[in-house]
């Protein structure tokens, strides 16, 4: 039995795939605890998981676009969150005495504390943000990120000569993507395990009876949309789906306040049982922002995508999906209803992208998911 500590940020898209790995480790008889913001982790994980809280403090909402979003992510979240959690994490590691840490790339404090205590640690990359160095064409941006990380290292009073990039464990980097999307061969200590898909219970709250037989269905799930641009995009989406014809039934998952008036056959819910909808074969395509989890889940179920990326790693993931032939990328801020309808038709009415989605999904699943991740983590113990 090995004792694992999962250091995760208070971000749903990071916690959910890690939960699949945690469940696999627990099923193998290991002891697993989480550490982070308990007020966020607990509702996502349920009452059964052990959560060692690092305290709660509000951090800047993740918003904006492009470089402003990148700056906000680092200066408004990654660095201040690492500073805020550094001391509590140290105390938690002293008390819990883990054998191995799994540290999300957005929580570098976990890597620092592991290094201080001489504990083996793995990095967790649930997105494409750092993998493949998306900003390698902008060396000064990479230097800025490295400078911020070195600042955290220095603040932790760790020896400068021992500096290790806290996003990349030299022992193991677990990623939920795979070569079918990234198009590259990873070094041996990288484990691209593909999507981590954990069984979810049936959702009786979803209006299953409203899914009309004989229709092609598009799930629209855009993550945390907000503001004028978010509402404007959804209005264009509703129009685009109307242009696709009455035999296409949209299922919107997201805040209803941003949605315009919908046609009677459309379904709208605040939260959709996405995996259950996919597993039951209720969907024909997915329109999303290009977040790695949704993309991985859709491809794992052979569903082609239309992506409208907004920020962070989404443009990179969207480009990978398009390059793999499994989807079409549209510009979130600029796509017209007509162009969006064309994109949706191209994934609904032709087989090429669906075939590619099936192939890419199979290749991603071959990464082994939670079982492969657990194998690699066990080897560190």
């Amino acid at each position, binding site marked *: 039995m090995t004792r694992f500590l999962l250091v995760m940020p208070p971000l749903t898209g990071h916690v959910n795939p890690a939960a699949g790995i945690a469940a696999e480790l627990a099923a193998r008889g290991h002891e697993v605890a989480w550490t982070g913001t308990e007020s966020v982790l607990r509702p996502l994980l349920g009452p059964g998981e052990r959560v060692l809280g690092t305290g709660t403090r509000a951090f800047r909402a993740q918003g904006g676009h492009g470089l402003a979003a990148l700056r906000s992510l680092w200066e408004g979240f990654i660095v201040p969150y690492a500073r805020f959690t550094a001391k509590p994490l140290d105390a938690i590691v002293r008390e819990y005495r883990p054998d191995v840490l799994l540290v999300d790339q957005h929580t570098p404090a976990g890597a620092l504390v592991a290094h201080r205590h001489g504990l083996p640690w793995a990095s967790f990359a649930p997105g494409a943000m750092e993998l493949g160095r998306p900003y390698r064409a902008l060396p000064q941006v990479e230097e800025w990120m490295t400078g911020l990380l070195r600042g955290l290292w220095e603040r932790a009073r760790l020896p400068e000569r021992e500096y290790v990039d806290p996003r990349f464990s030299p022992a193991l980097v677990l990623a939920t993507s795979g070569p079918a999307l990234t198009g590259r061969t990873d070094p041996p200590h990288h484990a691209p395990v593909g999507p981590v898909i954990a069984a979810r219970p049936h959702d009786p709250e979803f209006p299953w009876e409203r899914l009309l037989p004989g229709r092609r269905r598009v799930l629209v799930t855009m993550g945390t949309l907000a503001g004028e641009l978010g509402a404007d995009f959804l209005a264009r989406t509703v129009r685009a789906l109307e242009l696709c014809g009455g035999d296409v039934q949209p299922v919107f998952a997201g805040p209803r306040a941003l949605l315009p008036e919908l046609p009677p056959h459309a379904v709208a819910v605040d939260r959709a049982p996405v995996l259950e909808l996919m597993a039951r074969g209720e969907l024909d395509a997915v329109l999303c922002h290009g977040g790695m989890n949704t993309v991985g889940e859709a491809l794992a179920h052979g569903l082609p995508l239309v992506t409208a990326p907004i920020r962070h790693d989404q443009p990179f993931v969207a480009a990978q999906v398009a390059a793999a032939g499994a989807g079409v990328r549209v*510009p979130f801020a600029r796509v*017209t209803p007509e162009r969006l309808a064309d994109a949706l038709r191209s994934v609904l009415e032709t087989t090429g992208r669906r075939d590619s989605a099936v192939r890419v999904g199979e290749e991603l699943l071959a990464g082994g998911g939670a079982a492969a991740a657990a194998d690699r983590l066990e080897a560190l113990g």
Partner: protein
Amino acid sequence: MSHPEPPSFEKPLNPERATPVAPELVALVVEVAGAPPGWARRVTPDARLDADLLLDETELSALAGRLRERFGASADLAALRAGLDLPGLEALTVADLHRLLPEEDAR
């Protein structure tokens, strides 16, 4: 550096200050942006590529390729961006693109 909320995509930016940009450059920007033709009126000299035109990294990479194809190796947006820090990248405008064009194309 603070950034205003991106304005709605229908509205032109500072139309009264708009000065001509080489039409071919505007066409290339519209093309890589996957934008409707009317969006071209936003491609003014002072429009920032990131915060105003909302071009992301993959679109800027595509734009760099198209500029080199059309205007030659000296129209090297990739090299220009590679030499900039984050504030410099945030401040990059259509006028900066225009300055990359060979003199005969910049009119």
